[in-house]
């Protein structure tokens, strides 16, 4: 990013190639498999272009990128009324993010069961407040330390710890029936 800031236009291509997948993954974890995520990825990098002169390497570049992605996706969700769209998506046959549990599994009902679980987990994550959801996604799937999550969400490390704790409590409550079964 510093090279791009210094005028190396080729460095920007390298940034997009390196981070676009990470941003797309984060958006998918946060928003679900709804359409428009690729547009958001483009928007994230457009913000990078616009903020090039203001960028200061005070934290890891990915942390700065995640903050942009979080702000954009939170606005995007607020604009588009995500819950209604998601409920429709669940009934649709869009399974772009759902991989078969085990392609060699002989029992197809086992795969359906697993899809149910995946949908239930997604719905439970989706029902979390946006800050809890992003804190959980960053901690669980991006494996960011609380100190970096605090930078992304512009909050304190202590507040992030509390957010993750409450997110897990909410998930345990929402997925209570699944917690007693063995899906391993």
């Amino acid at each position, binding site marked *: 990013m510093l090279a791009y800031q210094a005028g190396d236009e080729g460095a920007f291509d390298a940034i997009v190639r390196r981070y676009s997948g990470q941003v797309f993954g984060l958006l998918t974890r946060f928003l679900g498999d709804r359409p428009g995520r690729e547009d958001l990825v483009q928007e994230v*990098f457009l913000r990078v272009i616009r903020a090039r002169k203001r960028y200061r390497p005070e934290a890891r570049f990915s942390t700065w990128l995640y903050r942009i992605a979080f702000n954009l996706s939170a606005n995007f969700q607020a604009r588009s009324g995500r819950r209604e769209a998601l409920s429709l998506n669940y009934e649709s046959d869009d399974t772009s993010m759902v991989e078969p549990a085990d392609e060699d599994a002989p029992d197809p009902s086992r795969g359906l069961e697993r899809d149910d679980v995946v949908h239930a987990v997604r719905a439970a994550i989706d029902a979390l407040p946006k800050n809890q959801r992003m804190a959980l996604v960053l901690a669980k799937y991006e494996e960011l330390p609380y100190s970096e999550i605090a930078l992304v969400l512009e909050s304190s490390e202590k507040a992030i710890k509390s957010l993750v704790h409450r997110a897990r409590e909410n998930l345990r409550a929402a997925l209570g029936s699944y917690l007693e079964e063995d899906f391993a």
Partner: protein
Amino acid sequence: MTGECRSFRRELERVLARAHSLVELSWSEHLLGCAACRALLEEEEALETLLGSLPEPALPADLAERVLARLRRGLAEGDPLDSVLEAVGSPEVPRDLASDLLGSLRLDRALELLPDPEVPPALAERTLLGLRRHRRSRRPQLVLAAAAAVLVLGWIGTRLVTRGEGPRRPLQQVAALPVAPEDAELLEYLDVLEDWELLVSEDLDVMLSSLDPVDEMLLDWTETSEGPEEG
């Protein structure tokens, strides 16, 4: 909840925060005697399993290249507003802005420490008095100028009366007076003095109060008449 329970749960949170496996906690001695913590650990393990069951997001093919192509297209087309905003750029902050501001603040504080100047008592009254004296000091000159004008006019009037044209009433005498060029010039000077507010009405009142009745009548005439032809 005992102290051991709290300690176990702190450890549980620490392991979760570091995304480590919870298996290491299952060997804790505390769990042997605490069903609540054992149940909590089992729930957390099950939740981890559920969260881990979500598949990795499937990335669209050639995502980076497509995003780059779209960005280039968008930048090439350009948004007029963006180009204007880019042209404006970021405001340049002077290098020593912070130290200058702090210096100014310190100076302000230092200036505030200075005591207010003491105003001498009755300054306003004494100032007004001084101004009045100044104005009075100019009056003799003005009075002399006016008196000279009156004397000249009076002398002309007296000469005309003594030419043997018979007794006439004062106004008639005055109306019949021709105004000599030098007298007209003197009157103009007086007008100028008055226009410039060097000769204020207050000064005139003072002068007039010192004139004898004949001279005063003569002056009245000069103020109300353009000349003998109109009288």
